[in-house]
């Protein structure tokens, strides 16, 4: 069986990245083409691997490739090994496929940037790290990719780091991710201490023998990791600022692939979560909170990229919710992840195309009426829009409604609460996405005379068209004969369908559609039928103000972590100098002080020395005499 091609998936883009970084200016002329070719060839390898898997029976599709023994100490044995199965191949195709489209898009988008080669080197590095993340055959290998994508994200958010706020955004993303990474390392440590292994296969095999407490601990730590990487509550604050990166980066890393790594991690660890119901419930709750949290922020943002980022956060909330619903939800979480990868990447590229035509303006209040000037962008963005709000038969309809349905059917109060949250989220999504589309493409023009909106070149709109096709067709294809569910079945072991369901698919769809219509209608009334002010109104409710401030997430972090942290740092620096080093210096001062006192006896006069010697001798003799008396 040919599993030897797996290593090329990771090695090719890594090589591309290294060549462009080490090659320096010499590669400026062809670097972007080379990187794109590398990404495309990785996609080719992925497709080949997929075709090989298709030709195999269900149980033999998973393949592993051991490269060498990476870390081996005592019983701690970790191989540098790759593994592809039904779950990873979905990601491989998404990463390399969308990745290649975004490479192509960036050729045009970044054509005026002096550092275009460096940008493509980073993109290739990201592809390599992300592929390692989904192909690693153990938690530790995944961890390497996990931090690798974090680094790529840091480098790309801070790509224009000469601007201090961008550099700060990059740092913030890295640190928030590190908090999550801490969770992942702890999960690995607990797994090793409990199960004696950190490979997926090993953990899966032994998970049944472990105590629920240990599994819950691992699950919670994995959830912490997922919240960091996937911008879930409470580690979500970095994602909005991450929009500082070039727009193709936002599309690839902060919408389609990297931020969904948390969902991959949870789905991959299904054997842990299924055995630890508490942790699983925590996952679902975090997902539900985040999907509402992101949606609320999305309603108030005027920056088109930040509105889309809030939407990403919310949509990943749906995926995490789906993954937290256990065997019934994994497949739909992954399905939503894939469809979201298409429509959100497409919309981000659309946003980039708008910015490209509008002198990098991002404020939607200064757009308006752009559909006449950018018809292709409008069309592709519109298809993505229909997909995300869940209009049948577009992709989002299939994936999102299924998650809502599974949530309702999770049983009891839990099911009703989660389902209601998901349903409410759908309504809000419809509202804020309609708002984005109206503000940008419909209504009157509100831009400066200086702006000359124009359609983007073919290198930019072609990827958008392809992604739009995905947004239209993917949901339908995935659900045809439950294709994706059956494909993933060997990995996530879905439960048999419930007989008694609280809500049938039809009821959920009708409810969801009704709410979507309400959301869309409200947005039309507010933004299409009434005048949109160019400057954001300030006489708004406290809720709007809070949503504009990202629901106080930064204020909270600053008040609870940053400022106390800075105070601790300052305090410790002072303590170190004053107390610890102070004690050391006190000893030195003591020695010097006693020396100073004794020095006064050293007058330099020979005769006084002689006097002291004489008196000393007399004293000594007297003492001896007294003692012997």
């Amino acid at each position, binding site marked *: 069986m040919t599993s030897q091609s797996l290593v090329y998936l990771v090695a090719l883009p890594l090589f591309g990245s290294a060549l462009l970084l080490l090659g320096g200016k010499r590669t400026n002329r062809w670097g972007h083409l080379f990187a794109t070719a590398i990404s495309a060839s990785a996609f080719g390898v992925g497709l080949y691997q997929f075709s090989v898997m298709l030709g195999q029976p269900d149980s033999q599709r998973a393949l592993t490739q051991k490269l060498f023994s990476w870390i081996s100490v005592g019983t701690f044995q970790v191989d540098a090994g790759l593994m592809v199965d039904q779950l990873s191949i979905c990601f491989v195709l998404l990463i390399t496929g969308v990745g290649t489209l975004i490479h192509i898009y960036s050729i045009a988008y970044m054509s005026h940037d002096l550092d275009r080669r460096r940008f493509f080197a980073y993109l290739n590095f990201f592809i390599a790290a992300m592929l390692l993340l989904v192909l690693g055959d153990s938690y530790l290998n995944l961890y390497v990719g996990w931090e690798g994508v974090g680094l790529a994200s840091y480098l790309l958010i801070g790509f224009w780091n000469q601007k201090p706020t961008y550099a700060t955004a990059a740092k913030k993303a890295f640190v928030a991710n590190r908090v999550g990474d801490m969770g992942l390392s702890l999960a690995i440590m607990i797994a090793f201490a409990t199960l004696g292994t950190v490979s997926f296969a090993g953990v899966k095999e032994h998970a049944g023998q472990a105590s629920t407490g240990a599994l819950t601990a691992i699950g919670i730590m994995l959830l912490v990791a997922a919240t960091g990487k996937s911008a879930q509550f409470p580690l979500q604050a970095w994602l909005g600022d991450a929009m500082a990166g070039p727009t193709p980066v936002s599309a690839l890393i902060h919408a389609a692939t990297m931020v969904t790594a948390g969902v991959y991690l949870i789905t991959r660890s299904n054997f842990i979560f299924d055995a630890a119901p508490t942790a699983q419930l925590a996952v679902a709750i975090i997902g539900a909170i985040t999907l509402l949290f992101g949606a609320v922020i999305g309603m108030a943002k005027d920056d088109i990229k930040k509105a889309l980022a809030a939407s990403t956060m919310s949509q990943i909330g749906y995926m995490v919710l789906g993954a937290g619903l256990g065997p019934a939800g994994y497949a739909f979480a992954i399905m939503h992840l894939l469809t979201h990868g298409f429509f959100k990447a497409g919309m981000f590229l659309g946003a980039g195309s708008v910015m490209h035509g509008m002198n990098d303006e991002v404020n939607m209040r200064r757009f308006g009426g752009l559909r006449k000037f950018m018809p292709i962008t409008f069309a592709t963005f519109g298809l993505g829009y229909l997909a995300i709000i869940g209009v049948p038969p577009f992709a989002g309809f299939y994936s999102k409604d299924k998650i809502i349905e599974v949530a309702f059917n999770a049983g009891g109060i839990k099911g009703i609460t989660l389902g209601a949250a998901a349903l409410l989220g759908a309504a809000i999504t419809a509202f804020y996405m309609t708002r984005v589309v109206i503000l940008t493409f419909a209504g009157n023009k509100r831009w400066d005379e200086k702006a000359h909106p124009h359609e983007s070149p073919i290198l930019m709109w072609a990827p958008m068209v392809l992604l739009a096709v995905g947004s239209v067709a993917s949901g339908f294809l995935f659900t045809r004969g439950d294709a994706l569910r059956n494909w993933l079945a060997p990995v996530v072991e879905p439960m048999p369908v419930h007989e008694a369901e609280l809500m049938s698919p039809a009821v959920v769809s009708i409810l969801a559609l009704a709410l979507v219509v309400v959301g869309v209608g409200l947005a039309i009334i507010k933004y299409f039928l009434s005048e949109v002010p160019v400057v954001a109104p300030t006489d708004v409710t406290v809720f709007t103000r809070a949503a504009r401030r990202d629901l106080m997430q930064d204020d909270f972090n600053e008040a609870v972590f940053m400022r106390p942290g800075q105070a601790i740092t300052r305090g410790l620096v002072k303590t170190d100098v004053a107390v610890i080093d102070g004690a050391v210096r006190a000893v030195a001062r003591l020695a010097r002080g006693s020396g100073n006192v004794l020095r006064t006896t*050293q007058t330099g006069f020979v005769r006084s020395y002689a006097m002291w010697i004489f008196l000393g001798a007399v004293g000594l003799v007297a003492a001896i005499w007294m003692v012997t008396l």
Partner: protein
Amino acid sequence: MNAANYLYVSALLFTIGAIGVVVRRNAIVVFMCVELMLNASNLAFVTFARINGNLDGQVVAFFTMVVAACEVVVGLAIIVTIYRSRRSASVDDASLLKR
């Protein structure tokens, strides 16, 4: 004759020498007083040798003389050098070792 009388003389000489060392400023005089103290102790050594009837004290006296001779050589040389450099033989002027 009582041997103890020699000891009294020795003690007297030593005291004169010691007072001289402490009181006088002129380096030569201080130096001579040191010699006086050495010789006082020599006298005591010899006297004790006589009292105890062995030669130990006399041997030590010889050693003391050798030490005294060395001291004269080195000490006078230093005093002469100091006098040359600062035109004074006062020991109080040579207090440079204070710092």
